């Protein structure tokens, strides 16, 4: 044995690496690869709440009557235009003609009726069934016209129809959309390697403005270190919601990349169990709100990405009222309020789901609460456990969670919701809001609702989750804000 076997092995491995190192010549880029943290469990947006479903298919594969623009505005989609009757009860939608589903069949008013009736039917598994609750009937007037009659006026009906859960599907293919999505969008599913990626290809029969990309690949990389390496190695062109904000500084320093930040619909709150003593005392809840230094949490847990909020409403919404001053950081006031409430030696449970805003934020909040004499008992839980224990069984005092659905202040009107508010006056405001169609009146009511929950200190409102990510410097047209959970690729292109 004269040869050194280790050296021989190393040399052959090296040779193997060199042989693999050959890369094909770069052609004009017509495709884009997007990194995502979670893989969608299926691709049917009408049968589950997983955000990852909409992040792949919204606007790309499926379309609804209306849609969200990147600024959150409601734009026409499959409906070309609409008329609303004076009493606000009848919506007549004029549909685009010449629209085809990916299987080649024609889209018409029957598909709209089918989709809406299916979503609101008894036994429907649409996660956002409430969006359709006010629909009394859906009638086909002619193939290009559909009339939706509501049981009571609903000022947010057009907004509701823009959700991914309200997309239009065809009766022949609806049942198979989970694995073989058939929509009317500009992209169609070409391949899904489970656990690795979803590939969308351009649909040439698309009715609207043609898209500029041939192919979009969504790659699922949940580990932040792996995501960082994949971006750096050039395997990805963009990671619009990057899982580790601490790495963004490194991308900023690299001219190949651009860091993008925008707002999301995620109100991050320290939720309190409003029915559990002593948290049923508004003074105690107010004391907790004043004990919290929002900026310290944003800096410490989110590396500076996030906007402080004082109520459960997105700051980029025109109707938002800045109420952060009302619950400003004031430990002395907090101590005084606790004394006033006659509470001492308080220990509260704090249950933290996996995201870093909760786990890191929770540690900071625990330290801040200790400053005013409140001890916390921290438990880390998985999402499934959180849903069971906190959300369903309401077995908690405090928890941190980001509510990412758009315009979800209505959850405060629910009696049995996990933080157990359901105040009658608040419910009355929401009932008025549902009936109001006049924009000025609606704004006024939305602001009243924001003030009401801030006055009652239902939860401690922390910050609006930022959508921070990284994209290749030459990639244009990616959404900065996320008015809904989506990666709209219809306007994305490569700069020459």
């Amino acid at each position, binding site marked *: *044995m004269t040869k*050194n*076997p*280790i050296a*021989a*092995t190393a040399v052959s*491995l090296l040779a*193997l*690496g*060199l042989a*693999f*190192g050959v*890369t094909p010549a770069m052609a004009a880029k017509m495709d884009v690869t997007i990194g995502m943290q979670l*893989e969608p*469990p*299926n691709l049917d947006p009408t049968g*589950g*709440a*997983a955000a990852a479903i909409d992040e792949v298919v919204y606007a790309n594969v499926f379309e609804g009557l209306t849609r969200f623009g990147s600024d959150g505005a409601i734009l026409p989609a499959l409906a070309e235009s609409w008329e609303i009757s004076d009493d606000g009860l009848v919506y007549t939608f004029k549909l685009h003609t010449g629209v085809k589903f990916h299987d080649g069949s024609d889209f018409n008013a029957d598909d709209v009726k089918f989709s809406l009736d299916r979503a609101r039917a*008894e036994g*429907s*598994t*649409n*996660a*956002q*069934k*409430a969006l359709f609750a006010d629909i009394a009937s859906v009638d086909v007037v002619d193939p290009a016209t559909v009339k939706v009659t509501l049981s009571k006026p609903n000022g947010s009906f057009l907004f509701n129809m823009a959700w991914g859960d309200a997309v239009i599907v065809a009766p022949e293919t609806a049942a198979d959309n*989970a*694995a073989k999505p058939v929509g009317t969008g500009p992209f169609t599913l070409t391949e899904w*390697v*489970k*656990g*690795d*990626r979803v590939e969308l290809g351009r649909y040439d029969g698309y009715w609207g403005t043609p898209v500029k990309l041939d192919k979009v690949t969504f*790659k*699922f*990389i*949940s*580990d932040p*270190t*792996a995501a960082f*390496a*994949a971006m*750096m*190695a*050039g*395997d990805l062109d963009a990671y619009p919601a990057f899982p580790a904000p601490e790495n963004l500084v490194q991308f900023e320093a690299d001219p190949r990349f651009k860091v993008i930040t925008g707002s999301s619909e995620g109100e991050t709150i320290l939720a309190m169990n409003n029915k559990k003593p002593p948290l049923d005392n508004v003074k105690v809840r107010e004391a907790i709100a004043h004990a919290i230094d929002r900026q310290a949490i944003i800096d410490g847990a989110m590396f500076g990405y996030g906007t402080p909020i004082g109520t459960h409403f997105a700051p980029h919404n025109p109707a938002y009222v800045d109420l952060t001053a009302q619950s400003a950081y004031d430990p002395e006031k907090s101590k005084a309020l606790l004394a006033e409430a006659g509470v001492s030696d308080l220990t509260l449970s704090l249950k933290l789901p996996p995201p870093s805003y909760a786990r890191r934020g929770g540690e900071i909040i625990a330290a801040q609460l200790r400053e005013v004499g409140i001890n916390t008992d921290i438990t880390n839980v*998985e*999402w*499934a*456990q959180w*849903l*069971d*224990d906190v*959300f*369903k069984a309401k077995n908690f005092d405090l928890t941190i969670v980001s*509510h990412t*659905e758009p315009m*979800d202040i209505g*959850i405060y009107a629910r009696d049995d919701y996990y933080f157990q508010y359901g105040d009658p006056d608040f419910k009355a405001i929401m009932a008025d809001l549902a009936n109001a169609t006049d924009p000025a009146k609606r704004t006024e009511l939305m602001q009243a609702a924001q003030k009401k929950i801030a006055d009652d200190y239902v939860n401690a409102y922390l910050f609006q989750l930022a959508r921070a990510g990284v994209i290749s410097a030459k990639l244009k047209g990616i959404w900065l804000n996320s008015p809904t959970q989506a990666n709209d690729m219809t306007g994305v292109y490569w700069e020459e």
Partner: protein
Amino acid sequence: MTAYLLRRLLSLSLSLVAASLVIFLVMEVVPGDPASFMMGLNADPQAVAALRSQLGLDEPLPLRYIGWVAGLLQGDFGISYTYRVPVSELIAERVVISLPLTLYALALSTLIAFPAGILAASRRNSAADLTVMGATQLGVAIPNFWFAMILVLIFAVNLRWFSAGGFPGWEAGFWPAIKALTLPAIALALPQASILARVMRSSLIDTLNEDFMRTARAKGLSRGQALWRHALRNALIPVLTIIGLQFSFLLAGGIIIENVFYLPGLGRLAFQAITQRDLIVVRSVVILLVFAVIVVTFLVDLAYAAADPRLRRRRS
């Protein structure tokens, strides 16, 4: 031999029954409801209930267990709660990554360990021996995920020879697929090779000190001839045991490496299914891994018998 085989088969099936019961019950005790997980924070309670009954989650426990086992026996693993496709399809898609990765890593590990172990044992206390011992000490000490990240930094981020991870699929061709598995396989193989080389070395040293080795040398065989003809085969028994254990470990334990390289393998499927409470997938993957481990142990037993005729005689 037949009686021995039958006994082994009976204990194999009893282990499987016990394992299936434990796996089923453990997943039942874990808090978390798949239906509410799928429907999210804003869901209508009626819709969640409708989904529960659609998934068959409202049936009584014993009925679901029997249904599951009866399905398994016919090769029907059920339908995944979250993906809504047959679990067997999901597993099949993942096995074609995990199994080749395991075999690739095992092959690399053996290719590195055998020559290194033999070299070290045959030239005991030489510089070569010390080098092998030092290198393997390091190999055992370095965690494979850390080594994996270093590989990614060097070969993917800096040199750009490889992708940082992912798997193009076998339909992309044999070489691209093998290329995607190369860094993960090296990361998995190195610590295993270190262990294996050390076992090979000490086992061979023990054998070289046996009386029959002296006899072989006395017969006139050179050191090298005696080693190749007599020592190696006798030293293989403990090495085979370790290889068997390593196969099971690599198949089930590739999960961390699969995460670092975002490979859609079995480990990641199980991990993802646990967080999503896709109970049926978790159960099926775990029972499959248990099955694989039991079968491999069985095969290793048979391999002993092949390597050492004395074991065969003792058992029959």
